[in-house]
């Protein structure tokens, strides 16, 4: 069971280092224009790759996932509060699950 402590401490270290290092070392540095531009796109590309393809397997049935996805897109287009997007999408998955 000592192994479990080793595992969580190791996990904590390898998760924390990538979080702190760039912030600590790069914050006073000015990136060249291309790199700056690269990092301006990172939020959008990372969000996209967090959504696809993970969302398709986020719930048991892919049909329910697709309904949740479509609901989230439609609600976000109407610029409602983000909580409404989240709850609406959960409800859409729940209803689809009942119907399946």
């Amino acid at each position: 069971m000592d192994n479990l402590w080793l595992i969580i401490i190791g996990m904590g270290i390898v998760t924390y280092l990538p979080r702190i290092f760039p912030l600590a070392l790069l914050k006073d540095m000015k990136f060249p224009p291309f790199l700056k531009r690269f990092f301006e796109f990172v939020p959008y590309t990372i969000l996209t790759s967090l959504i696809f393809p993970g969302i398709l397997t986020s719930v048991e049935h892919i049909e329910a996932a697709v309904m949740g996805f479509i609901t989230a897109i439609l609600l976000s287009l109407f610029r409602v509060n983000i909580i409404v997007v989240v709850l609406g999408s959960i409800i859409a998955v729940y209803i689809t699950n009942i119907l399946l």
Partner: protein
Amino acid sequence: MKNHFLKGIKAGIPIAIGYIPIAITFGLLAESYNIPNHISIMMSLLVFAGASQFVAINLIISGVSPFEIILTTFIVNFRHFLMSASLSQRLDKVSNKILPFLAVGVTDEAFSLSALEKKQKINPSYLLGLGLIGYAAWNIGTMIGLLLALSIPQIIQDSMGIALYAMFIGILVPNIKNSKPIFIIVLIAITISLIINYSLHLSSGWTIIITTIIASFIGAIIYPKERDING
């Protein structure tokens, strides 16, 4: 400063709503596999990274070696390196005292919310508030899950699985609507991500890292000028 901090807490409420059911599920899962409670609680406190914690529980009960579990965690969570580097260029003046705490809060959700704020500079107190409410929700949720030790109806638990993805969509879509370059780059990123995942069969950790690097690189080449992004 206090004002920004409270703003961050408020902005983080949707994150907390997304985290709690997932954290409860994590607690329930760990409990059902007989992982000691103090280990599950410490894992949430020390690691604070959802997907990798679920993966770790699975690997632990499969008897995988500590080295492999730690290496897998590193790969799954290395995307935070890109987020942290991106934030480093946008963060307002920050004291070295709060930086270690800020870094704890660099998660997919807090990063996405703060990086897509309209303002060019991100206030450190705001980011701290955003991180703190997520951290609190994650750890309280874990403990609730361990204490409950009863099963939430499967159908409700399953429906909650979409929560964080819905939040990502809610953050991303308004930006796509406003900018053609972002729309194009998002389409490119979707394509790359699907190709990497389905034809190369790489893990989601690698898929996210490689997709982000290639698609952002293409973005910087096609749209090299600042004004392109909103035009």
